[in-house]
């Protein structure tokens, strides 16, 4: 039970985002990604989630290779900048859909955990940004996968909810789960490590594998 990322490289539109990146997460551990804007934190999370292809390198999660897409994806849950909420549906309808789709049975418990009970029947478009964020994060908890990939999860959350969410991550890790979190604030997690990312500066050693950029034209 662990996540191993080795020599991972990713290029977008002919530009290298990160190169030869290696990272290890042990069970029960939360790793916080830090780095300046544009360092590739979001890209790394999306590559691990399988939303962006990597050019080279290997990712291994609990013995399942990244190339074994279906089995790999079954262990991962991802939360990006967008909350994947439908404004026309109520809060509980939104969450129930994800719970059904991911085959989860802890809907009520998660609703309570994220303090969504009192706004359960409100259409999502009447919710505040922070409430929508809570609903978006509740999806992570309801899908109950071993590896959580969180991209700036605390944006627009108040301090109390942030602390509450940190406790939820802690509980997830205490149960043997893993989390990789891109954030700029200190979440105050129990078992966390920081992984620094730097903006990639192109060097002569790396060949950019874009067929359209080959040759001097």
């Amino acid at each position, binding site marked *: 039970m662990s996540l191993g990322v080795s020599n991972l490289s990713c290029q977008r539109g002919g530009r290298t985002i990160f190169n030869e990146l290696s990272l290890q997460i042990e069970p029960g551990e939360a790793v916080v990604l830090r780095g300046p804007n544009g360092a590739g934190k979001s890209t790394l999370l999306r590559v691990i*989630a*399988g*939303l*962006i*292809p990597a050019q080279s390198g290997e990712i291994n999660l609990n013995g399942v290779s990244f190339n074994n897409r279906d089995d790999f*994806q*079954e262990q*991962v*849950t*991802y939360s*990006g*900048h*967008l*909350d*994947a*909420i*439908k404004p*026309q*549906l109520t809060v509980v*309808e939104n969450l*129930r*859909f*994800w719970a*059904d*789709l*991911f*085959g989860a049975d802890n809907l009520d418990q998660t609703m309570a955990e994220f303090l969504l009970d009192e706004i359960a029947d409100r259409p999502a478009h009447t919710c505040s940004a922070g409430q929508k964020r809570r609903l978006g994060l509740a*999806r992570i908890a309801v899908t109950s996968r071993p590896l959580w990939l969180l991209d700036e999860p605390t944006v627009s959350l108040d301090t109390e909810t942030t602390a509450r969410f940190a406790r939820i991550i802690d509980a997830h890790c205490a149960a043997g789960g893993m989390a990789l979190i891109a954030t700029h604030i200190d979440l105050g997690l129990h078992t966390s490590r920081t992984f620094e990312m730097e903006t990639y500066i192109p060097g002569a050693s790396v060949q950019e594998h874009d067929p359209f950029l080959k040759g001097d034209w």
Partner: protein
Amino acid sequence: MRSLLIRELRLALRSGGGAGLGLAFFLIVVMLVPFGVGPNQQTLALIAPGILWIGALLASLLSLDRLFQSDSEDGTLDILSLSPMPLEQLVAIKALAHWITTGLPLVVIAPVLGMTLNLPEAAYLWLIASLAAGTPALSFIGAAGAALTVGVKRGGLLLSLLVLPLYIPTLIFGAKATSLAADGLDPMPAFMLMAGLSLFTIALTPFAAAKALRTHLN
């Protein structure tokens, strides 16, 4: 699977979903025809099958551009692609939901509009049958087109240009089946060809659309 279908139907029926839009558009387009070509009953009866079919075609095109685009914009598509459900199945269910909210109402209202165009009595059954068998193909071809244009800003027009030529075979045989019945001839050959075309489309387009969505996601 059922939860996705229910969700799609709910989204279409709530505000901004545009479920009634196609129906209203169909009504207005068909009602405009007598004003344009004049109230001559023979002329209307002659063009009724074609007008009804073209109207249904355009109406079902109307709400297609938001099929995947709204999901793409709010991040839902990312999460759907990570879910245990295969993208092919996702596309098929979304196309089915599109048909239930757009195609099915057209089938129901078409006989009433047929009356306003003086469609011969013998053709009503075949109008309903051909629309019922043909409109699913429109939704499924449209889903493939919508998947191709999901990343394009204001892709609605591009979608129409891509999809409308592909609607031609369904239009030819659908309208032909209806007009053959109107003339008292055997509409079965045209109907069977169109039904076969629909089955072919329903079987294949989910794969094409899923491929297009994967390309978009990457």
